[in-house]
């Protein structure tokens, strides 16, 4: 039997029928076509499905859609400006060549958005710890850290 969830997704109020057995990952991808939310493992080991729920980075593969009732969800699709402008973090990822296969990228960008949102500045080692919930096999994290440092690094 389907359940109705009311939530805000990328600023829009959404009322959606879903199967109570669904993860938020599945609901966002399959019912709202928000395919930036990637599935890499299904068990919270890779971070590719990270979105912000009420401003906090969460692995949506381990989050039941039932829990999203009343929550504010932000995915990478929600970062673009009205005229297609990129968020500074997205631009930094482009400029620093922090993108390769691109599969981990939206998740990492959401963590970067969360960190930028705190207004704090982080050291490189702090950033390493804060992105350790995202696995990337292409980049060795070097340019990802460079991109994040540009936005919320201690020297930025």
């Amino acid at each position, binding site marked *: 039997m389907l359940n109705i969830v009311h939530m805000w997704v990328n600023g829009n109020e959404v009322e959606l029928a879903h199967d109570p*057995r669904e993860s938020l990952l*599945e609901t966002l991808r399959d019912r709202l076509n928000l395919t930036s939310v990637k599935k890499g493992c299904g068990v919270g080991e890779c971070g590719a499905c990270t979105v912000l729920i009420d401003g906090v980075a969460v692995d949506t593969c*381990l989050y039941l859609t*039932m829990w999203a009732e009343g929550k504010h969800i932000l995915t990478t699709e929600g970062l673009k400006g009205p005229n297609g402008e990129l968020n500074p973090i997205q631009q930094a990822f482009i400029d620093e060549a922090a993108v390769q296969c691109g599969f981990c990228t939206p998740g990492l960008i959401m963590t970067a958005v969360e960190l930028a949102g705190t207004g704090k500045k982080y050291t490189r080692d702090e950033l390493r710890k804060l992105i350790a919930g995202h696995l990337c096999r292409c980049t060795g994290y070097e340019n990802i850290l460079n991109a994040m440092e540009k936005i919320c690094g201690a020297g930025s």
Partner: protein
Amino acid sequence: MFDIEGYYEAKSVEDAVRLLAEHEDAQIISGGTDVLVKLRDGKDAGGSLVSIHEIRELHGVRLQEDGTLEIGPATCFTDLTNDPLIRRYVPYLGEAVDTVGGPQVRNQGTIGGNVCNGATSADSAATLQTLNAVVVLQGTDGIRRVSVTEFYTGPGRTVRRHDEVCRAIEIRPEDYAGFTGCYMKYGKRAAMEIATLGCCVRVKLDQEGRTIKEARIGYGVAAPTPIRCPVTEAALAGCSVEDDRIYEMIDSGVLGEVRPRSSWRASKEFRMQLISEMARRALKEAIRRSLNGEAPGVAAQDGKGGDQAC
């Protein structure tokens, strides 16, 4: 999708207890970072879930009148680490849970789940052992309090009954005031890890900072359940912190009190090596913190973070 037959959102602890009693196939889900992983793996497939995810009263850390810290079991690891009371009075507990998985998992996973899943590798386990933390369980028959030192009955097994919900984890002032501590997690990589070994050593020194008044040593993964090392703890009491023999004492002492097993994750021999070495290092750090004046007093309920003398 997860293979569940029923899903029930509990509105309160009482509601959760009732739902559990009504549904024998149901298990509690809080943060979901353990339960959903197991469900996906086909374990408990076809069962039901009673969610305590949305019960607000189970979140956060509170101070009781007598200085007891009351930790809401649905408090996620991140919130616990950042909680002012935790940072002030039991910072090593916050440090311990800050080693769980990665940030996203710490934003979801809860301290209650970490305790109630009965895992010896839980990152809070060694520290809570040294704190003599009390698990407050509420069931159909009412509320009971169980010390974590008596909570575990085997790997993945605890004294919690099917219809019981953990409604708090309490840390009493006599267990934290005057103590410093250090938790060391040993993993194969620096994040996204299950502990190969977890070790917490806590000390309370005399006024002059010369003598160990009390030492507490807790381990995860050094036995099928989290354990303490009471014999070595007793031996360390009264020893001078300036005497390097304390490190040899802890080093060899703990080896007689642990029961690690060989598994594909690590051999018994390797774990024994870590058990000694980490105890030594954690003791050193705990003492350093005490000498640095980091030991707290008893928390006062004035909300201003003022300590009572201990």
